[in-house]
């Protein structure tokens, strides 16, 4: 691990989650330290996206608990009881956790700039003028300064995903979650999105990235986690997990994707 002394940013303990009769997460533990990049790999259906979605409470866990930056997600502790949080408080917690979707989910009726400005103004009540200036800075950072007044449909997939990243960053979250950020992109557009994520990694942003890009994991990750069938099978440095996997299932998966 690169920064062993850094505090824990995301702490996942014994998380279980079922959809009906199907148990998707069967007791997952994971710890992500501040400034670290964690890449989660695994076959489809292994529960990696669901795990990511429990971190910002898009999915409610059935058992176990998750805390981000020291605060429990979805609950408030008082003495020996856990009180379920009201939606308003959950929404406030989410402003500390950036989420980037596979399908971008930009708001199509708002311009690029309006997409980025919306949440800081309406959720954090920050002054619009200040947020707009910051948004232009973020657009510059993802290389789209000239697209501020475009609508999402006028952009390529890669550009849309870079706007989505800028939108998540506008809330200045403590951690960024990426759910297969390049899976919906044409192959030639994958690079530009990964470059933006790499940039963020170099600047010390805490990130959890679910992806199938092994090369990206090798280059950027501090920790690689391999999940299968709702469990963490293996975790370690990219060198350990990718080049010398200890588990048969990790080996089998890597032999298919490499």
């Amino acid at each position, binding site marked *: 691990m690169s920064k062993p002394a850094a505090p824990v940013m995301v702490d996942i303990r014994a998380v279980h989650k079922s959809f009906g009769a199907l148990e998707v997460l069967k007791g997952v533990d994971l710890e992500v330290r501040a400034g670290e990049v964690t890449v989660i790999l695994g076959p489809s259906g292994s529960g990696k996206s669901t795990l990511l979605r429990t971190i*910002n409470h*898009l999915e409610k866990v059935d058992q176990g608990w998750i805390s981000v930056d020291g605060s429990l997600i979805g609950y408030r502790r008082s003495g020996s009881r856990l009180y379920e949080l009201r*939606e*308003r408080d959950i*929404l*406030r*917690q*989410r*402003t500390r*956790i950036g*989420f980037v*979707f596979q*399908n971008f*989910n*930009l*708001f*199509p*009726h*708002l*311009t690029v700039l309006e997409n980025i400005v*919306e*949440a800081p103004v*309406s*959720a*954090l009540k920050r002054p619009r003028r200040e947020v707009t200036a910051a948004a232009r800075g973020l657009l510059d950072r993802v290389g789209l300064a000239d697209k501020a007044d475009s*609508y*999402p*449909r006028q952009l390529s997939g890669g550009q849309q995903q870079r706007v989505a990243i800028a*939108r*998540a960053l506008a*809330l200045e979250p403590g951690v960024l979650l990426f759910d297969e950020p390049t899976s919906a992109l044409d192959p030639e557009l994958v690079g530009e999105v990964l470059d933006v994520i790499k940039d963020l990694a170099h600047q010390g942003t805490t990130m959890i990235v679910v992806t199938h890009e092994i090369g990206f994991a090798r280059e950027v990750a501090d920790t690689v986690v391999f999940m299968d069938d709702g469990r963490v099978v293996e975790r370690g440095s990219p060198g350990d997990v990718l080049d010398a996997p200890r588990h048969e299932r990790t080996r089998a998966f890597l032999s298919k994707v490499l």
Partner: protein
Amino acid sequence: MSLTSDPPVGTKEPAPPGDDYAALKVVPVRHPWRWVAITATAVVLAQFIHGLATNPGWEWGVFAEFFTADVILEAVWTTLQLTVYGTALGFALGIVLAFMRLSKSRFLTTVAFGYIWAFRSIPLIVQLLFWFNLAYLYEELRFGIPFGPGFLSFDTMGLVGAMSAAVLGLALHQAAYAAEIVRGGVLAVDGGQLEAAAALGIPRLRQIRRIVLPQAMRSILPNAANEVISLFKGTSIVSVMAIGELFYQVQVIYGRNGRVVPLLMVATAWYILLTTVLSVLQHYVERYFAKGSAR
């Protein structure tokens, strides 16, 4: 095909050599039957217009006399008021009902469903007569603690006059349809949009107002415009309550002077004129909500 008039093969024109297609003359396909259909339609149309102009039964002089008469203008104004209030109240209640039906509470969805079921089942004319006779059921209306003492009370007969009974009836009827239209529009918005808004921590009401409704408007508007237009014409039903709207007034006048046809034409012309205005309005409102869309 034998119907087309391609030049017969082997004319005297000298054919350019080889496969130099660029030098060949292109002969478009002919549509003789289309011309037959156009001629037939034009003849029928001409007959119709000729009839309108020359048949003395239309009594265009009477039409012109009443088209802008004060009584008629007042009646048009009443019709417009019924439409505007009916639409505004109907859609306001419709939006509430739509979100009740979309809520996670079983109780709220059932109540909303029940309302929609009931008001779509009762013919508007029956409903209007019920409202008109409300005072028979409830002699006074009180505002206060439910089942407890009241603070304000109104005499139902005085409060629910004919006009407000009509607006109430139209609005309650409209709300049932509006609810389903709004619900359909909201369901048509991609689920990822709400998820993204939730992930960004945007407050719940703001998610609806800023993210969901503007996008839902695209599928709500064409249906809503249909509803407004059909409500506008539907106001003529209110004539059963002896309210001086356009159709009632026209009936009163031709009851007096016996000029049935020209007076019906007066009403028709006003309905057409105002529906046209509504359609133009619809075009511009739709264009506004098409921001950022490809089509």
